[in-house]
């Protein structure tokens, strides 16, 4: 007993603890590095094929040296996403890790079928970050993934940054997995995704890219190396990466319509955050301009709204103040008047013309939203939060609560200032 006490005395305990720690830690020294067992996926594109298979294309980052790496595209098909990813895992010979995946793209067919099943799988079990940007694309899955690699490696353009620009200046709301879920699980089940087109036809607003290899490979074991540009010209293919600001609208996880950028511009006037936009006035005639085409830049915006009920129906009054700058003047004759700086300010005719145009367009766009029941301007949220009792009463009076937007009345008061 004395000997036992001596061996396990408090002073010697530290030696025993050190030995224990060493024994535990040494068993990990003979294990391979994680980079040898795990493939890092930085982007993922998924779509459904005509024969109802799931096609998955992944951009896999392969470390070359300590400071350099190469991106490669691997594509596979399967009965479901798990199956397709398992095929890619076999191609690469590594476990597929999605922790660094910041782009999650879904093809049109899958979006129309049900976008949520892919998202649910990837966020639930594959640890795809909820901050990963979501993209709805049209075109071939593998082409889309190859475009991501081409843009990054040859043009230093990050697709996630392009989409973040859309978020900042076009849709004025987050477009990542988290925000998609928020919309889906919200009361109305509405979510949005920016739309990217991969077109084989020439598009002047798109980025022209040369992709290698054949598209639409049938075998799950096939893969294409899209990391390098050029190569065999007979196999290269021209595609156009088009981001024109189109936004896809989802209800209950299924895509049901698209909103054009020209419409989003007016919807954004009713949103508090977005301040960027341009307006065009045709045939402007005033003391300064004759038959001029003016491009006006929105430099600042102040927006307030008031909620009320008229005869039991919700009414929302928007009070919008816009600060406008003349950006471009296209006149058939000489624009001598512009020599005088006082003419650089927007005059009354421009203000009146623009006010009328904005109100007309707002009415058209909002009535379209009402007809299609798309609450992009968060009318439900506003009334539910600030006029809860009356709004609940109004909802209860409807046969179908989902049609609440149709009876909402909109009023607009637009005030335009020159910001020069």
């Amino acid at each position, binding site marked *: 007993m004395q000997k036992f006490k001596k061996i396990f005395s408090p002073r010697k305990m530290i030696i025993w603890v050190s030995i224990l*720690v060493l024994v535990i830690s040494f068993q990990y020294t003979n294990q391979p590095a994680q980079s040898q067992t795990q493939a890092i996926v930085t982007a993922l594109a998924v779509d459904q094929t005509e024969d109802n298979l799931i096609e998955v294309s992944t951009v896999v980052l392969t470390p070359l040296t300590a400071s350099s790496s190469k991106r490669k595209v691997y594509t596979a098909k399967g009965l479901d996403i798990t199956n397709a990813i398992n095929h890619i895992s076999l191609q690469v010979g590594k476990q597929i890790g999605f922790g660094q995946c910041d782009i999650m793209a879904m093809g049109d067919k899958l979006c129309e079928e049900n976008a949520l099943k892919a998202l649910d799988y990837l966020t639930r079990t594959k640890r795809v*970050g909820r901050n990963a940007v979501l993209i709805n694309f049209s075109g071939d899955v593998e082409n889309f993934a190859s475009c991501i690699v081409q843009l990054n490696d040859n043009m230093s353009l990050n697709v996630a940054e392009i989409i973040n620009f859309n978020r900042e200046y076009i849709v004025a709301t987050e477009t*990542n997995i988290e925000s998609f879920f928020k919309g889906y699980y919200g009361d109305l089940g509405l979510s949005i995704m920016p739309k990217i087109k991969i077109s084989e036809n020439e598009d002047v607003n798109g980025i022209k890219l040369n992709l290698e290899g054949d598209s639409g490979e049938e075998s799950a074991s096939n893969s294409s190396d899209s990391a390098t540009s050029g190569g065999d010209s007979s196999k290269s293919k021209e595609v156009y990466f088009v981001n024109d600001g189109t936004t896809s609208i989802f209800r209950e996880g299924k895509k049901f319509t698209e909103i054009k950028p020209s419409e989003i511009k007016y919807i954004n006037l009713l949103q508090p955050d977005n301040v960027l936009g341009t307006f065009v006035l045709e045939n402007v005639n005033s003391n300064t301009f004759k038959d001029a085409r003016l491009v006006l830049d929105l430099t600042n915006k102040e927006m307030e709204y008031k909620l009320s009920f008229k005869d039991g129906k919700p009414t929302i009054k928007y009070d919008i103040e816009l600060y406008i700058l003349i950006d471009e003047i296209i006149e058939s004759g000489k624009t001598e008047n512009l020599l005088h700086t006082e003419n650089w300010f927007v005059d009354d005719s421009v203000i009146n013309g623009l006010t009328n145009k904005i109100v007309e367009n707002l009415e058209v766009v909002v009535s379209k939203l009402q007809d299609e029941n798309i609450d992009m301007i968060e009318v439900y949220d506003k009334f539910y939060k*600030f006029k809860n009792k009356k709004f609940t009463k109004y909802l209860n009076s409807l046969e179908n609560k989902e049609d609440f937007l149709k009876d909402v009345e909109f009023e607009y008061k637009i005030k335009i200032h020159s910001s020069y």
Partner: protein
Amino acid sequence: MRMSYRQASIIIFYMLVAFKVLSLPSLVYQTCKNDGYLAVLIMMVVDAILLWGSLKVLKQAKDKNIYDYVKQYTGSVIAKIFVIALTLIPLIHLGIKTKGLEWFLVKNLYTQFEWFQFAIPVSLVTCYMIYKGIRNIGRVSEFFVWIIVIGVTIIIIKGFGAVDWSFFLPVLSKGIKPIFKAIYDYLAWFGIGGELLLFAGCIDFKNEKKSRVFFYSALAIILVQLVLWSFYGAYGIMASTHNFAISDISQISNANIALDELSWLIVSVWAVAQILHIAIYGYLFCRGLQLIFNIKNDTVATLILFLILILWIFWGEHTIALEKLFLHKSIVWIMIVAQYIIPIIIFAISFIKKKDKKQSDAQSAKSQNIIQSTQNEGDKASNADKSSNLGGGKQIKPKSKQPNKSRGKYAKV
């Protein structure tokens, strides 16, 4: 060795914040939706009020441990039952805390994590801290407190950039019922009044400043509320899917990106703070264990805790029953009895006895005055008789304190 009043105030701060900023926000959201912060606020205020009662008892107990203190009024059987009930609280809290820390590390910081890689170092560190005594835990707590406060504040500020304040409207749209349901369901995550009584005899009230406890309690309530507002406001209806509020706030995308690296450092500091939490609850458990089984050897109590921690983590790793255990109704009722009813009974006993003592003190003082006045009159009479003999009444001496029976370092302090 006892801890100072300042250290006790800081440990109270740790205990108040301990369970409120990790998994609780998402759990409460499932029941209360956007009113979740109200459930936490109500319970934290209740806990802060009970905390004052506990401190009064601790002050009154002076050198006595809680068993000896209760025994003098109720007898040994009831005192033992009370101590057993009080010891169950830190055991439950240890379970929640170790599981929470393990999940936090496994889900947030590492992709592969074996249970023993977590269990052995955490158990060794915390048991060593416990073995070294409460004053050492108090000192470490003192060192970390402002690092944690500043760290959590930075995370809150980062989250505030993404907060949609209208998310909290309308207030109480579903009434008050969900709030009380959430409080009942997640009662194991609240409470301080009961387990704090196990600190009886550990706090030196020499430099008592009540404002200090008030300050740290208020700081804890404010900090937790800010975390909840930041978390709920940023994640909205998705809050229920984010199990680690404090670290998930730091991952909100549209906040200042420059803070990203810093926030991960802060989240790691929070992991260190969780080890401190385990040490505090481990100490309370060891103390209770020594009082229940009359264990005089501190090493034995620490080794029992070490084994419990290892088994607890192993069990938690290999079964999902542990997560459900804390939501079980029996745990809720243990918490109601041990954390709220027993302390209130002890406060009541101490209040009544204090009143009785005051009355008896007043009576004894009165009788002493009568004796003195009689003596004075006698003196006067003897003076009148020109007698030179000095006399005096019997002086009443206060009863000398009985020394504590040794119950090991934690019990004896």
